[in-house]
């Protein structure tokens, strides 16, 4: 427990209440250093990026970044303006609360004993998770969907000896004719 938490646990709780998770989508010029420039806008405030996905965009020479992070709305608004100001950032949009399709992939490895296997496979089936590796003393599952669904599945699997977890991070796209 950190010193700050010992001194003021109630304050920490109130902050948590205020800090919702946000998903920011960036459309960037694909040039060396653009990822560092983006990361520094968060880092100079001591903000943590929770997940980050970078991939080529439909147009050549451009990339997509999908970033999730938590913070108070006023600061995040400022962060988005400062991201948009970067020479290599074409667009920066906070999609939180927007009509957007969101998804994520997770890979989960379980050191699962014989007596638990049926239970684990039942949970996996319920979440449409696919067994992608089946070994003597481990099982690997692949699941995709909304981040909340993945959180729920992982919560259920945790008691069964989850040894590794890799999540892709959230990606999203605005629905209809709206720009991402």
């Amino acid at each position, binding site marked *: 427990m950190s010193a700050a938490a010992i001194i003021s646990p109630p304050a920490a709780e109130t902050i948590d209440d205020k800090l919702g998770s946000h998903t920011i989508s960036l459309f*960037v*010029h694909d040039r*060396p*250093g653009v990822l*560092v*420039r983006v990361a*520094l806008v968060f880092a*100079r405030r001591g903000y943590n990026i929770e997940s980050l996905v970078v991939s080529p965009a439909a147009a050549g020479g451009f990339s997509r970044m999908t970033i999730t992070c938590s913070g108070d709305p*006023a600061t995040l*608004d*400022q962060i988005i*303006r*400062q991201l*948009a*100001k*970067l*020479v*290599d*950032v*074409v667009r920066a949009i906070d999609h939180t609360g927007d009509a957007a399709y969101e998804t994520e992939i997770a890979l989960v490895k379980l050191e699962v004993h014989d007596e638990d296997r049926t239970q684990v496979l039942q949970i996996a089936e319920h979440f449409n998770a696919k067994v992608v590796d089946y070994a003597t003393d481990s099982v690997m599952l692949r699941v995709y969907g909304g981040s909340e669904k993945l959180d729920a599945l992982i919560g259920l699997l945790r008691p069964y000896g989850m040894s590794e977890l890799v999540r892709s991070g959230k990606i999203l796209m605005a629905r209809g004719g709206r720009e991402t």
Partner: protein
Amino acid sequence: MSVQIPTGAERLIQCLEREGVEYIFGLSGGAAMPLFDALVDSNIKLIMVRHEQGASHMADGYARATGKPGVVLVTSGPGATNTVTGLLTALMDSVPMIVLCGQTISPMLGKDAFQEADVTGITYPVVKHSYLVKRAEEIPLVAREAFHIASSGRPGPVLIDLPKDVTQGPCDAPFVDDVELPGYTVPNRADPEDISAAAELLKASKRPLLYVGHGAVISGAGKAIVSLAERLRAPMVNTLLGKGATDETHPLHLGMLGMHGTAYANKAVVDCDLIMSIGARWDDRITGKLDEFCVDAVKIHVDVDPAEFNKMVPLDLAILGDARLVVEDLLPQIEPADSEAWLAQCEDWRQRYPLKYPKQGGLRAQHVLDRLNDLTRGKAVITTDVGQHQMWAAQFCLSTSNRNWISSGGAGTMGFGFPAAIGAQFGQPEKEVWAVCGDGGFQMTQAELATAQNHKLPVKCLIINNNYLGMVRQWQELFYDNRYSGVDLEGNPDFVKLAQAFGVQAWRIKRPADVDRVLALAHEYDEGPCVVVAEVVKEDNVFPMIPAGAAVKDMLIEKPKAPMQKPTGST
């Protein structure tokens, strides 16, 4: 006939010539040798400095005095890292600057080569943009983009890192005129609806105040702002960096606002019912305690950088655009406000709370600067360093024309004033240029006396010597119970002898009776640089003062009798 293909370095220098570069401020080294070699055959004049920080502040002073980007050329590793303070200074104050850095050969990047530093990595937070050039054919495009980015919109420094194999290798890539930067747009004219909304708000105001910042200097909005003030019948105040955009001797001008601004400017801030920022970013030195800043006043903000909107204070109206164009578009819709009582009130404050200083008790910095103001009457370019002398110069040396006031505001960089004056003098050879420095800051870049002397540059340096880091000492006196720590500059050199050692003419002012005579000597002297050392009283304080984090209304006109709490605001 064989055509010789230029080297990357030669191509880059040709690009700089096309950009209209007159001077490069630089210091050589191994990785920069191809670039220095290319300068031999160029019309661009190389101003060789004694330390790269000096070069960066010279380029900064040149840029602020002319509006054109200042150019720095340094070598890799320590040469490049020595410009970091200059980059921060330029970024914080929106100054167009190009820093060219030599770099190890590209196959050695990341291998801890001799004098290798990850310069683009080190400087990301202190540049508007930067480039690491990997192929010589990129040079013309990078150069054009760099100048475009540095000098347009909200200006700022751009760094170009140039591996030696790139500058040494051949480059016959054609020159570039137009750049395509889909992520970079430069606001120009504002939305007409925003202009009309501003006109409505101004019309309804009875106590309007125009708050003028560096953006007004950069866009040359001063003339339009004075017309706005006259037509609307509104007083003006300016920030430290807004000095000179509008004539500070204008009857509607209340001088500088903020932490050490005039009492009447700050009283106007407290009582106004509308405050309109024109290119000023509501800095913490201006607002003091945010919760109490202009709570009931309508707030309008004109800025070319949308990231500044609502950053510090919630706005009633944000107008995105170039300051000059916005104010010019606004003018036809302006009618006089019902503000005569307000103007009378401001005038009453001006009479009741003038800037003042004791006339007895030894030589005072304020006296020297007051007389310098009388001598130069706003005609000279004045640069300052950072500290008490800076605030006194801001209070007493009134600026009357654009780009005649050059000071490190956002970064508060000590060591800035003297090299900035050198750069300003190169940029404005016909003007009288004075650097006002403290004894602390001057020593940080004093080696540039050699640079000034080499070029017989008629720059004048006034050192306000109190043998202290005076501003920190003032805070220790006011807020730390007189516990002085790390402020005594015991061991200072004799600055007159120091200047003479560089072959520079120098005089000393010891008594108030010397002031006019010595300043006049320096004013007349045109054979090269000169130094005036004013040996002022050791312990003097800058007032008015709004302690950091206090509300503007809690401004101190003079030293309070009772001990004070430590300030809670930003530094």
